[in-house]
């Protein structure tokens, strides 16, 4: 199987958390993402030798099945060796710092996507975004999320224009769902489900 093309922004600032990006850096990343959107999807389709058929649900079903099988293989994800430790506080009640350190430890356990796994999950998110944009017309569009600052997608490209729910971060959301597959919380249909759910939200306007 050929190597999966990595998702590497050509900017040094991309190594910093997006929360620390300046407005100019967020704009550079946004423009870069939109410029490579099509190329990334072509790479995804070429990798699995799957053409688009004109039916987003059928396409996401087929590709989701490929991705769910592929993402659990060693090139795309790893299980790291840390075993969840029992929480043993030094005092009762435990301090905020102790709880935070324990949560950090839990976050480091379990499966991890490799760079190729991240790229694959990101590209599935871009494919979902492409379908939403083509199906929902000008009701939705790309934007940079500028508030709230506490949002996981702050400074990142998101789709906006949905009813009730504020925005969809197709890349971050897709990566999280790929983790869901690795942990057994999600199945291959998740990308089709994302598409159906958010298409419905766009049509409720």
């Amino acid at each position, binding site marked *: 199987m050929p190597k999966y093309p990595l998702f590497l922004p050509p900017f040094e600032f991309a190594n910093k958390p997006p929360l620390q990006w300046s407005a100019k850096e967020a704009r550079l990343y946004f423009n870069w993402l939109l410029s490579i959107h099509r190329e990334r999807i072509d790479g995804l389709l070429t990798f699995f030798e799957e053409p688009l058929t004109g039916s987003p649900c059928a396409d996401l079903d087929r590709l989701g099945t490929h991705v769910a099988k592929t993402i659990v293989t060693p090139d795309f994800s790893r299980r790291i060796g840390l075993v969840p430790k029992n929480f043993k506080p030094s005092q009762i*009640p435990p301090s905020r710092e102790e709880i935070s350190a324990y949560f950090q430890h*839990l976050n480091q356990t379990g499966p991890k996507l490799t760079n190729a796994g991240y790229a694959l999950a990101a590209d599935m998110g871009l494919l979902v975004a492409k379908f939403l944009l083509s199906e929902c017309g000008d009701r939705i569009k790309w934007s940079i999320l500028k508030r709230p600052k506490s949002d996981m997608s702050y400074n990142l490209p998101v789709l906006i224009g949905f009813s009730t729910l504020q925005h969809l971060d197709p890349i971050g959301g897709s990566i999280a769902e790929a983790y869901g597959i690795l942990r057994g919380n999600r199945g291959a249909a998740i990308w089709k489900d994302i598409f159906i759910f958010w298409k419905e939200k766009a049509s409720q306007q």
Partner: protein
Amino acid sequence: MEAKVGRTSLTKSIRKQIQKDIELLNTPGSGVTAVEWHFFPSKTGIGPTAPLRQALEEGGIKIIEHP
């Protein structure tokens, strides 16, 4: 992951928090695929009261106690 210290009951603000978690859990692509509430001890005790436990379980939220 959510941390609660001491015996915790189903107040109005906790109910709101549960609703938000359930909404995220049921939104494909939200970035949330599982929710865990961790309960830590304090002088008031530990863990959810029965109504809170029920609300969490009904919402598909995992309860973890650290006695």
